[in-house]
């Protein structure tokens, strides 16, 4: 597989503010790649640099091996789905979709036919003659998608395209977007602050924070093997415990848990001292004895499919536990002292 985009030590400064501190990452062809991070982390800036709306202060961006740093946006074979769609308000839906084709010099008949096909693909054929303002948010979103895909870009950039939609529609669109990406074989670069969106659609995710890429990996890698506190905390829910490392070698560490029990676990660091141990709530189970951690149950929250237990360690640290709701489970009562067993290999020592 070739690389669609190669970002090399890219720096972006606005005056004295540095939005990106030397970001490097490669995005493969045909990949659904997500830039995930809280607002202000630089993900949108990076996307806009790929599209050509922002200059690169330092470093280079290669698109299929070609440095595109100096190219105007209209000369880049990438198209964008904008956050608020930016549909041309004075043009019909069909003309919007056909605009990129018109600019590429396609004849009127051909481009109308192709734009019609694109509208069919997003199930909006009946709305071809409407103005964008006459469509619902979800429909506008599909038009924006059709418009950006019509010129057959090699890379499609999506800037939080689902954020303006309501939850149900957003969930439906996630599946559709992934399907569309697989059907067209176009590289999608998707920007979002919603970790659930990122996890459900992406082949790979780059987690960003404060102008740095924190971790790049598949949804599973990011969720199950976060490298640092930020990633562990930002993706899903986790318990972070301060622990002492007794010994560490070849990515495995022996640590002492609060309460004195020893534990062997995978490690993202190879230095001794105090480090954070990340344990996902659903990887903990209740045991009568022989647990790794001893806790007191403080609250039981019923979530339907799951039960969430808020418990506390003797030292005062809170531990969240999630267990499946089933008839076989004996639900502890508030005030019960119980043991927690950490699933084999599920606890992970973080780098910071």
């Amino acid at each position, binding site marked *: 597989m070739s690389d669609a985009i190669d970002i090399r030590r890219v720096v972006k400064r606005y005056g004295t503010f540095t939005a990106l501190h030397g970001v490097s990452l490669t995005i493969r062809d045909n990949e659904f790649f997500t830039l995930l991070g809280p607002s202000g982390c630089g993900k949108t800036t990076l996307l806009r640099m790929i599209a050509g709306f922002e200059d690169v202060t330092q470093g280079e961006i290669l698109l299929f091996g070609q440095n595109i740093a100096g190219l105007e946006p209209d000369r880049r074979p990438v198209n964008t789905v*904008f956050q608020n769609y*930016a549909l041309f308000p004075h043009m019909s839906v069909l003309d919007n979709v056909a605009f990129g084709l018109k*600019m590429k010099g396609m004849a009127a008949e051909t481009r109308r036919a192709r734009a019609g096909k694109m509208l069919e693909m997003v199930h909006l054929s009946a709305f071809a003659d409407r103005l964008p303002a006459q469509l619902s948010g979800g429909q506008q979103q599909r038009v924006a998608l059709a418009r950006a895909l019509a010129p057959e870009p090699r890379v499609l950039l999506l800037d939080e395209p689902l954020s303006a939609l309501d939850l149900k529609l957003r969930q439906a669109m996630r599946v559709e977007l992934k399907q569309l990406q697989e059907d067209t074989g176009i590289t999608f670069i998707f920007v979002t602050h919603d970790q659930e969106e990122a996890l459900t659609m992406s082949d790979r995710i780059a987690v960003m924070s404060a102008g740095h890429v924190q971790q790049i990996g598949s949804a599973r890698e990011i969720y199950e093997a976060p490298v640092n506190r930020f990633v562990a905390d930002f993706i899903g829910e986790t318990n972070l415990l301060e622990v002492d490392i007794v010994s560490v070698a070849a990515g495995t560490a022996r640590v002492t848990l609060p309460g004195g029990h020893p534990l062997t676990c995978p490690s993202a660091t190879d230095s001794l001292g105090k480090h954070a141990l990340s344990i996902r709530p659903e990887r903990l189970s209740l045991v009568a004895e022989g647990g790794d951690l001893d806790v007191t149950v403080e609250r039981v929250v019923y979530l339907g499919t799951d039960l969430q237990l808020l418990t506390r360690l003797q030292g005062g640290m809170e531990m969240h536990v999630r267990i499946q709701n089933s008839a076989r489970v004996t639900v502890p009562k508030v005030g019960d002292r119980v043991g927690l067993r950490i699933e084999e290999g599920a606890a992970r020592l973080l780098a910071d």
Partner: protein
Amino acid sequence: MAGMVPDQTPSAAGDGYRRIVGPLLLPTWVVIGIFLVLPVALMAVYSVLTKEFRGGVDWQFSLAAYDQFFLNRGLFGDEPPTLEWTYITIFWRSIWQAAMATALCLAIGFPTAWFIATRPANTRGIWLFLITIPYWVNLLIRTVSLKFLIRDNGPLNEALMGAGLIDGPLPLVNTNLAVQLGLFYSYLPFMVLPVYAAVERYNFAYSEAAADLYASRWVTLREIVLPIVKPGIVAGCLLVFIPSLGAFLAPDLLGGAKTFMIGSLIDEQFKGSLGNWPFGAAVSMILMTLVMIALLFYARSTAKGGAA
């Protein structure tokens, strides 16, 4: 465009709404009555009365004013009537002058408005303020000042000659160009302000989307920006064109006999004993009718454009 926007009038509570708002609209109707309906009605009536020689009118119905405008019956009024070209020529010249002034205002006003609208939001007010400063000075004085600037031994010609760009002074005063410059200077803010308002509301994401879809800057301006800010441009053009058409200060002060415009023609009819009130009123009526017909055509063409 207006048809797209959902109607915000609370129609469910229609009757109560009307009961409350009805009396509140009274001042509006009074103002419209006094300042719009009454003067136009007066003008229409005066245009069909008989001329009184010391100025003023005799209350006797007569179509002499319109006859004088359109028909030539010879020096003594006894020849078979032919089409009178004198006033039509003045009308045509006025339309041309006003159109040129409007084009000048657009050429300078659009970039100016664009510049202001793209400054940081907190400095735009200052720029708009600077634009309006010259307009605190009386129009008459501004027009006279312009004459001083462009006359044969004025600063403009002196500077051009000093720079060696021209040998002798450019004859600017008493030309069509001088009148156009005068009109341009008089009405420039009426172009800048509505265009500014439209450009300020323009969402630059549209330009980015166009560039993203392979449109060059020029094509983006033509296909995206101009159609979207068009209402502002049209408003600006109307606000410049209409007063320019009836202006008399700039043509009087900066032009000569060859640049005589409708405004001056009307102005003359109400001055002293040489005036002719019914004729002045008739010329005004004809001017107003022309403008209204032009506006109606425009309104119809945009209504069609908006629906497509």
